[in-house]
């Protein structure tokens, strides 16, 4: 630990100033845009935004998909993490590597794959028509389901990683002990595993939820203009109608939602203990 503060500041300030000037200040100006009008400060940007039915639909859809994706990821994540932790050390490392691997692949590539799977002539539709379940292909792309599947695939690894590292810290004999003392698996989960892994769940949940809220590629490719989410709506507002007030409102919503998700989950995690 060195005590020469001036030297320390000289080292830290370039990064801080860079981030402040080229990042925080422009973002702050953008956020302030919805509050400004020719005559002074106003909230009309917000009231106008929320008075339009389309915007309301998009807002609640984004929220709903975020919650659904995070919730589903938590369920699958617990199952997968539990299985991974039960493996021997070598197998555990390999499987963990396979879970992390998709994170290194471009989201464009990962989302594009779903067009091949869910498209009109995709695997799923070929199977459905082939089996005679339907005469014509069903529309699977540009539906909320498609966006949900794409988002889940994109962000599930983050949940599994968070839960695996939380579960690795559970003492080895706690779960067998609970079983011996007569708890069934549901009780073991609710009263032993859940309390001991809630930090991992909070981290994973925040990452998946905010990731799903702020994803652009997945709703753009798999949802198109039929299933707009806040990010794609923002892009459309700016590109189609130069509507920067709406863009500013959406930006604020996204930031506030990400922050409150984090706070809420933290609150839940601490309330239980």
């Amino acid at each position: 630990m060195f005590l020469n503060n001036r030297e320390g500041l000289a080292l830290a300030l370039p990064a801080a100033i860079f981030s402040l000037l080229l990042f925080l200040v422009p973002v702050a100006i953008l956020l302030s845009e919805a509050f400004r009008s020719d005559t002074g400060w106003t909230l009309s940007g917000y009231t106008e935004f929320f008075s339009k039915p389309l915007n309301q639909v998009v807002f609640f859809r984004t929220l709903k998909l975020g919650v659904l994706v995070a919730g589903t990821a938590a369920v699958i994540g617990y199952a997968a993490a539990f299985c991974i932790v039960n493996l021997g050390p070598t197998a555990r490392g390999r499987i963990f590597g396979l879970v992390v691997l998709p994170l290194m692949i471009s989201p464009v590539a990962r989302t594009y794959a779903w067009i091949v799977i869910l498209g009109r002539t995709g695997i799923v539709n070929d199977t459905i028509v082939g089996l005679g379940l339907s005469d014509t292909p069903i529309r699977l792309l540009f539906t909320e389901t498609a966006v949900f599947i794409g988002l889940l695939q994109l962000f599930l690894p983050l949940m599994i990683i968070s839960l695996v590292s939380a579960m690795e810290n559970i003492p080895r004999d706690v779960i067998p002990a609970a079983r011996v003392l007569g708890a069934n698996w549901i009780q073991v989960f609710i009263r032993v595993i859940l309390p001991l892994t809630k930090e991992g769940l909070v981290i994973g949940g925040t990452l998946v939820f905010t990731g799903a809220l702020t994803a652009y590629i997945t709703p753009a490719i798999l949802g198109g203009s039929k299933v707009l989410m806040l990010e794609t709506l923002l892009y459309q507002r700016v590109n189609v109608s130069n509507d920067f007030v709406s863009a500013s409102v959406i930006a604020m919503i996204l930031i506030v939602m990400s922050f409150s998700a984090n706070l809420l989950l933290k609150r839940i995690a601490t309330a239980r203990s």
Partner: protein
Amino acid sequence: MARTTNWVVLGLTLTFLIGPFIIIIFAGASAGESLAFPPAGLSLKWYAKVFTVESFRQSFMLSMFLAVFGTLAALLIGVPAAYALNRYKLPGDETIRTIVAAPIIVPGIIVGLALLRYLVVPLDFTVTMALFFAHTALVLPYAVRVVSSSLHNLRADMEEAAVLLGCSRLQAFTKVVLPNIRGGVLAAFILGFVTSFNQVPVSLFLSGPGVRTLPIDMLAYMEITYDPSVAALSALLAFMSLAIVFAAERLLGFSRYV
């Protein structure tokens, strides 16, 4: 029994996570004209076509430039910051930490729009410059975090010893600290490179005539053409990322740092 269930759950999860990627590889290797799986016969013509598309070549170079130099710039300011935050008791160090970490929290699309509107338009920044700054800011939090954690594991008294033995502070840093955190810096570079290269939302608004990052170019291409070349390109890029990560893992146990 329990063991079988274990593998069934893992098998299903991994199929969901990795299956689509395998499908992309084969869809790109189609001999047919349109995107399909299973492909209409196998050929490498779409993989070859990727290299002949002029816009892909241009946008690949731009993405490469941003990923390499944006990450280097982030390290150039990020390593000293990480060092200062770890080794000095700074007034307001929490504030500095928050400011530097902020780019992770703010959605990329907003950053891109803000830079376009307040740097490019009024201040006459070129789009390439704005892209460069945006990618640097985006990578900065990772650079600071990864380098911080390897500095954290390095005892501060080693530098103090070096100074006592006659090194200047700068020498103590270049001769003692830097060699010891080399792995962390390299890991930060790779993480930054992959993050920047795959980044879409930040670059969405920051594109101009002839200036487009590769993922944005791919999005634009798939809007007009429905041939397997984007699948082939996706597969190639994925292999590139994986090769980088595997090489890093082999060389320095990358996963320790991330």
